[in-house]
């Protein structure tokens, strides 16, 4: 799939102010690869309960470039998922701005697709119909839906399960469906919230490699939250390391080498050491 | 076999045995004769009527004439009036009438009329299409108010019902087609039933009750003959209190209806001044036979062990207590006794009971009456049957139907 993919002829959507639901990445076709696509400025999230006020996220700002995969790692409970949910619009930050291009993001939309740790697949739909869900929402006609979902089923190795029910699948397969469902929409940004967190180590590795394969075929902008530093090193172009709560950005690392990477190579090992040491220092459990 | 399986089987057997034992103990043997019932007196005869729906007034259901009708006509001759009631069955066919209940005398009478006219007698159910060879009924309509309600849901042509509801209907501007006094001259209506066990144990108390009761009936009849008497005023007052009438009636309307109803009912307690119940026996025998033919009773007199319906009626109707009450000299009880009486609430047929209670006649005789008011005859019978009531005031049909179906008629106690 290349940047020259054509916009579907004809405007199919009724209201003018509605964001075109699928292929929202084309809205930002004018922004070149490697230039900032997503800007997060002064993100603050404060929780107020009856007893006290907790600052979860303290003034975080960063940028995400088009076509890159950025990981967010940090100590447990630091607020990585909170940041991601703010970007997705499912959570309203206390203050701060989130912008894609020149558009301010406040509510959820198909321009920020999401992959969930517990898959969030629809049990009353088959695998194929789950993947086609977003396209249905967007009003994409049946034949086109079918054709596109066939491609993704093939790419994710799900073809023989196309008409199966979700509960018949293993954890790894379910997340493949989850990823396909998000990716088929070609959102401007894909948010992944510890997508492999519920899987065993072997499946995890396999899925990481699948993701890398997909990324090498088509360019996507991804923000990836994980607690596994190894995973972040294997997948990311850059890694944002957060402090413990209230979360601030400790440091942003650039990961050397092109994907697919050798997990054991020395540059990665050095980086791993540095990040792990920092996280250890932030880990208050053993104080 | 597995030990577990054996254990389970043993437990089950013990459980069955325990249940059976408990049941037997609870029932403490079938002293069947004690649960049998008898008819021991009359309460009233006549006192019902057929009300017509307002759109039916012009229809010619019955023609009353002095001369005998032609050959093949369906008619009833009233010897007391000397009149012929001729039924135009073509106008009755396909029509729907309401009755107060399947076990009531009114229902039986309507069935008799249908039979006489050669019409089938079938219940009207939702979605039934009517045919002209059938007279349809809706049973279980116990009041005029209820009749008016049911008129909203079905095209009822008329309503056969007891007083005082007939008079209530007249106050509402409805017309009466005929009274049962006209059609079934002198017909049995309500009777007094009693449990044999009670009669065996408390014969004397019961005779005192019957004595007081018969005096009350005499007083009522005397009062109705002299409307200026104190008893008349008392009677009307008690009737107004005890008989339920709809809200829309004014006080004067209620008074008119009550008086009209009182005069339509014939209050009696026996067939002779000495307490004979022989006519009642004959009536019961006829009733039993026709109800068996109508399938409302599923055991014939022979099934119950009697040689004929007459023999059964002789066993069922026990006139000894009435005779003793009327011919013996009246004595009040030496010590206070209580009788549990089941009666139909709001029923003007049974007004003598209320009259005797409300004027203190029972009290004077040292009798305390525990009344259990019920909605209908079968309910009164139920209390008699399970022993909660010693005696009951109910219609002859429910008494007969339920007693025969429950095999509660026995050879009388010696």
């Amino acid at each position, binding site marked *: 799939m290349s940047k020259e993919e054509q916009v579907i002829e004809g405007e199919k959507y009724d209201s003018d102010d509605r964001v075109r639901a699928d292929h929202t990445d084309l809205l930002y076709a004018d922004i070149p690869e490697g230039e900032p696509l997503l800007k997060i400025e002064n993100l603050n999230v404060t929780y107020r309960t009856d007893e006290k006020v907790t600052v979860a996220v303290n003034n975080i700002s960063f940028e995400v470039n088009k076509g890159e995969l950025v990981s967010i790692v940090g100590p447990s409970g630091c607020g990585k998922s909170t940041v991601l949910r703010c970007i997705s619009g499912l959570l309203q930050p206390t203050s701060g701005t989130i912008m894609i291009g020149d558009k301010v993001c406040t*509510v959820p939309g198909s321009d920020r697709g999401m992959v969930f740790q517990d898959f969030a697949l629809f049990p009353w739909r088959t695998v194929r119909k789950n993947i086609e869900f977003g396209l249905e929402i967007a009003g994409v006609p049946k034949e086109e839906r079918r054709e596109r979902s066939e491609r993704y089923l093939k790419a994710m190795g799900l073809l023989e399960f196309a008409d199966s029910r979700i509960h018949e699948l293993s954890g790894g397969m379910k997340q493949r469906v989850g990823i396909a469902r998000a990716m088929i929409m070609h959102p401007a940004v894909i948010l992944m919230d510890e997508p492999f967190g519920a899987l065993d180590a072997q499946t995890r590795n396999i899925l990481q490699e699948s993701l890398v394969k997909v990324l090498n075929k088509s360019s996507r902008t991804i923000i990836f939250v994980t607690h596994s530093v190894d995973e972040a090193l294997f997948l990311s172009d850059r890694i944002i390391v957060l402090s413990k709560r209230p979360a601030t950005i400790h440091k942003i690392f650039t990961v050397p080498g092109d994907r697919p990477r050798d997990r054991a190579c020395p540059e990665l090992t050095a980086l791993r050491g540095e990040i792990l040491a920092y996280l250890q220092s932030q880990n208050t459990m053993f104080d | 076999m597995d030990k577990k399986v054996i254990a389970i089987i043993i437990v089950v057997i013990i459980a069955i045995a325990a249940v059976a034992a408990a049941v037997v103990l609870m029932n403490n043997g079938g002293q069947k004769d004690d649960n049998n019932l008898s008819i021991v007196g009359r309460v009233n005869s006549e006192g019902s009527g057929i009300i017509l729906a307002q759109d039916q007034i012009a229809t010619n259901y019955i023609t009353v004439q002095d001369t005998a009708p032609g050959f093949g006509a369906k008619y009833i001759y009233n010897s007391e009036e000397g009149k012929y009631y001729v039924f135009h069955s073509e106008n009755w066919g396909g029509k729907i009438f309401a009755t107060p209940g399947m076990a009531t005398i009114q229902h039986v009478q309507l069935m008799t009329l249908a039979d006489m006219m050669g019409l089938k007698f079938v219940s009207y159910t*939702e979605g039934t299409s009517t045919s002209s060879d059938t007279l349809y009924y809706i*049973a279980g309509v116990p009041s005029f108010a209820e009749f008016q309600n*049911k008129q909203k849901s079905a095209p009822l042509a008329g309503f056969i019902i007891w007083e005082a509801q007939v008079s209530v209907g007249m106050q509402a501007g409805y017309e009466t087609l005929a009274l049962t006094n006209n059609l079934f001259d002198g017909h049995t209506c309500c009777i007094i039933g009693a449990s044999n066990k009670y009669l065996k144990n408390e014969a004397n108390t019961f005779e005192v009750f019957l004595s007081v009761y018969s005096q009350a009936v005499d007083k009522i009849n005397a009062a109705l003959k002299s409307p200026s008497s104190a008893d008349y005023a008392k009677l009307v007052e008690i009737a107004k209190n005890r008989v339920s009438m709809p809200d829309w009636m004014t006080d004067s309307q209620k008074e008119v209806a009550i008086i009209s109803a009182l005069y339509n009912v014939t209050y009696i307690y026996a067939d002779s001044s000495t307490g004979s119940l022989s006519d009642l026996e004959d009536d019961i025998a006829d009733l039993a036979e026709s109800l068996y033919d109508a399938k409302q009773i599923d055991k014939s007199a022979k099934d119950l062990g009697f040689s004929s319906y007459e023999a059964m009626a002789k066993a069922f109707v026990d006139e000894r207590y009435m005779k003793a009450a009327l011919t013996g000299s009246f004595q009040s009880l030496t010590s206070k006794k209580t009788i549990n009486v089941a009666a139909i609430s709001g029923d003007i047929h049974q007004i003598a009971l209320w009259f005797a209670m409300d004027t203190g006649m029972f009290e004077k005789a040292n009798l305390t009456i525990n009344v259990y008011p019920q909605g209908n005859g079968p309910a009164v019978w139920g209390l008699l049957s399970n022993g909660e009531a010693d005696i009951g005031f109910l219609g002859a049909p429910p008494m007969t139907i339920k007693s025969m179906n429950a095999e509660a008629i026995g050879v009388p106690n010696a």
Partner: protein
Amino acid sequence: MFMKYDENNRQHRMIRSAIITILSLATFLVLWWVVTALMNDRNFPTPDKVFVALWNLLLYGDPIGGHSVWDYIAVSLTTFIKGFGLALIFALPLGLLLGYVKILREFTAPWIEIVRPIAPIAWAPIFVLSFGSQLGPALVVFIGIFFPLLTNIIFGVQRIDKNWLDASKTLGATQGQLFTKVVLPATVPYILNGIKVGLGVGWMCIVAAEIYNKFGGIGQYLVDMVNGGLMSNAFAAIIIIAVLGLMTTGVAEYVSKVVSRRMGMDA
């Protein structure tokens, strides 16, 4: 015949089930017989009398009322279906709405809590009086089915996995699409469960409704037979009502299974 029972053999399983069922029913019959024979109570006929009455009823109908038993069953079934249909029509949209919109749910909660506990039997005379013979009895059945159905649906909507809603939003779903494509299908198992519960209650209401309506039906036949003291017929009527109840529940179970399987929610 007494070969070893193999749990994995389908035939063995079926035979075992059949044997257990037959033994159980036979024991039930024996118990019934023993208890009624010992009771010697005129109100509790022994099974043989009841089955004769049932047989005659099915073959020759009701000689007193002059109708076949199928007429009565038709009346009761019609009432039941009317009531059931009404309950479905009202409970479905109302349940979805109340489950979805918190403020409406909170507002109507007191109404529901006050009306729901009132037994349908209590409403029977009032409904039959006010709404006549066409609608009154159906409304008694309606009220019996409506509340369990409503509460099940409201509960179901509230138990929808938030992740599904979140996922749908990130796929661009509007509020309307959230409702039709997520809330509705997710609630289906709860709807089906509510229907199953409601059906049982519905048959309980039939007798109550027909006591007051008196326009026929198997419930009215039951009461008439009790009033007349023909207890074997009354018990036969009870058996018929039980069978009708079983049939409707059976149909509901089947529909429920089929829909659940088609929607993949039977795991």
